[in-house]
């Protein structure tokens, strides 16, 4: 029986420089998915890397072995120095916990800004990549598709999503209340987080004149700059840009404020006191709250912005609870599906389905032929029963044999699809809602029959 394992680190467990190093290294060289043929115990794998998280989602038969392989992959392939004590930053989720965690991530409940919509797109990209590398099969295929539909459900049934969208919208609305038209204003992004992107998109839609990006890792800055037609600024020189820029969006992972009172104060005269608007969406904060005391300088942190849209804290917590409830429900449904992948329940339901069909057909026949005697009826019953038995004999023997193998899940899933066993929890519904994604194929093991 395969285990689903999720190994990773996020903004809560790892400092930003570690995360950035890891994410950058993973993107730079060959994708870690490329290494999967060399891994003995890891069966399926999806690799998700954003600026706030790095996660390996994989299935394996032995959790300890799988962990060892993935950690080794991290160390050697990614080239992290041995001095970095990686273990203290990592978290590990197994089976249902991993499923739940993935659902939380997809629904943006685990994000730095709860409800920000970018993460789902990033997860879809990660999945697409895994499909290209052919590293997802039955379980992860199903799991990822499920996570997309869970995210969609959370988005439509709670207002978690509108919360984050309106945070960046609130920032733009405030900027418009300070500056009026934004067409001659320039925006500086310090740190290139998910939320910064969202804010940048909103500001760009307002037609700001100029956009600049300063980020610790230049590559990420360049990536963002290319997307928003922006310029990059060396990270250690962004303070100089305060002289010319009008709106600053801060989202670095720094633990200490990167902009303090004197930094701004001393540059206000050179700016000729033109208003300066800081949008500080970093947690912990990037801009010292004292900066707000300077004339013509306005500092809004994430709480202030959330206060602007009058969704109060209680309401937000309430929404988060609803979302978690949805996720718990879906996790249980997924567990049921996972359980059905073992041989016995599959065989049972194949038999049940056949028996149901047989009974229905027999009943129809009897009602059309009312003058059958009891003996004749009995004969028909026996006849149909034995047809079914003979017909199902070989498939069931086959399934029982395969149940001993590691790849049983593939056959069980295939069987279920072949007989259309799971009418309610069937995979088809999630596929229809994701037309932009490659449909999960029932991948039969060819080159990697682990048996």
């Amino acid at each position, binding site marked *: 029986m395969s285990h689903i394992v999720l190994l990773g680190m996020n903004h809560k467990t790892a400092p930003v420089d570690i995360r950035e190093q890891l994410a950058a290294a993973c993107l730079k060289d060959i994708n870690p998915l490329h290494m999967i043929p060399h891994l003995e115990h890891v069966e399926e794998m999806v690799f998700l890397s954003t600026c706030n998280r790095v996660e390996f989602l994989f299935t394996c038969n032995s959790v300890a072995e799988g962990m060892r392989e993935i950690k080794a992959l991290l160390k050697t392939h990614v080239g992290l120095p041995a001095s970095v004590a990686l273990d203290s930053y990592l978290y590990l989720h197994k089976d249902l916990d991993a499923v739940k965690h993935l659902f939380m991530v997809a629904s943006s409940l685990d994000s730095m800004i709860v409800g920000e919509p970018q993460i789902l797109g990033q997860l879809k990209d990660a999945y697409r990549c895994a499909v290209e590398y052919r590293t997802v099969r039955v379980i992860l295929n199903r799991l990822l598709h499920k996570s997309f539909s869970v995210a969609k459900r959370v988005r439509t049934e709670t207002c978690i999503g509108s919360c984050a969208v309106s945070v960046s919208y609130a920032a733009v609305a405030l900027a418009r*209340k300070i*500056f*009026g038209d934004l067409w001659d204003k320039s925006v500086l992004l310090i740190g290139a987080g998910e939320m910064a992107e969202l804010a940048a998109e909103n500001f760009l839609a307002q037609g700001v004149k100029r956009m600049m990006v300063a980020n610790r890792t230049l590559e990420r800055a360049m990536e963002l700059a290319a997307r928003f037609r922006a310029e990059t600024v060396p990270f250690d020189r962004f303070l100089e840009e305060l002289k010319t820029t009008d709106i600053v969006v801060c989202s670095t992972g720094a633990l200490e404020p990167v902009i303090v009172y004197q930094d701004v104060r001393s540059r206000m005269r050179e700016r000729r*006191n033109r208003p300066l608007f800081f949008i500080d969406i970093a947690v912990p904060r990037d801009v010292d709250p004292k900066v707000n005391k300077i004339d*013509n300088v306005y500092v809004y942190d994430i709480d202030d912005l959330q206060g*602007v849209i009058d969704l109060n804290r209680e309401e937000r917590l309430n929404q988060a609870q609803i979302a978690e409830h949805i996720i718990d429900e879906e996790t249980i449904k997924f567990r049921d599906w996972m359980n059905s992948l073992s041989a016995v329940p599959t065989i049972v339901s194949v038999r049940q389905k056949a028996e149901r069909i047989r009974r229905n057909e027999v009943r129809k026949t009897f009602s059309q032929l009312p003058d059958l005697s009891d003996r004749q009826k009995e004969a028909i019953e026996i006849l149909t029963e034995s047809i079914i038995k003979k017909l199902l004999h070989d498939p069931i023997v086959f399934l029982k044999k395969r149940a001993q193998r590691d790849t049983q899940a593939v056959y069980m899933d295939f069987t279920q699809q072949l007989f259309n066993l799971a009418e309610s929890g069937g995979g088809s519904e999630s596929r229809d809602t994701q037309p932009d994604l490659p449909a999960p194929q029932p991948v039969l093991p060819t080159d990697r029959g682990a048996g």
Partner: protein
Amino acid sequence: MESFFLVIATLCYLSGTVGYLVYLFRDRAQLHRISWTILLAGALFHGAALAMYTAESGHLPLTTIHEALCLFAWVFVVTYLVLQIRLQLRILGSFVSPLAVVFMVSSSLLPSHIVLRNEFFKSGWVIVHVASLFLAIALFGLAFSLGIMYLLQESYIKKKNFGFLYGRLPPLERLDSIAHYCLMLGFPLMTAGLLIGFAYAAVVWHSPWSWDPKEILSVVTWIIYAVLVHERLAVGWRGRRAAWLSILGFSATLVTFIVASLLLSGHHSVVPGKM
């Protein structure tokens, strides 16, 4: 007839103000258009009354503080009506029209003894002196209203505590730049008006400066605005401090205009028996 027109004008201003105050709470373009038109009608009646007075007496209605304030109120309203067409800053009406009512009502409460010798007021110089100063003060009055709006809006945004006017008030930069525009237009007018006054005084009284309290206060006011203009242009002052200073400047102007005329003696005084 004149006083009848003045009453109608005051009533127009009053109802225009009511319209604009309702507009503060209800964002209806229609409401603004009606209020603006009522103010315009008031200004027409007001202007007719002033014209009739001038035609009758042969000089501008400036001989008493009552008349002077009444004339100023007219200049103020007309300045607003014209600027409104250019600026399209509708909410400004809600802050300006109450001032017009205050000027009209207080002008009718002030004493109206004729004291100033009429011959001085027939000169074209006096007309230019008064016209440019009144226009300057009217512009400063608008800057004052804009300053109040700015401070309100600024405190909402700074304290992150959004009062009910937050949504209705325009962006800070817009308020600041219009105030700047009023100031840059008003200050040269004020300077010119004062210089003409000094020149005329030099001709009539053979000395440009006679330690008249109104002269002294005018110069103080001028210095306040000079500081404001200098800081705005040279240092780049803007926003809260500039708003406070323009509020201070206009208050000083009002003090100069009313208090000095009423309580202190001199050329400009209208208190009976002192001259």
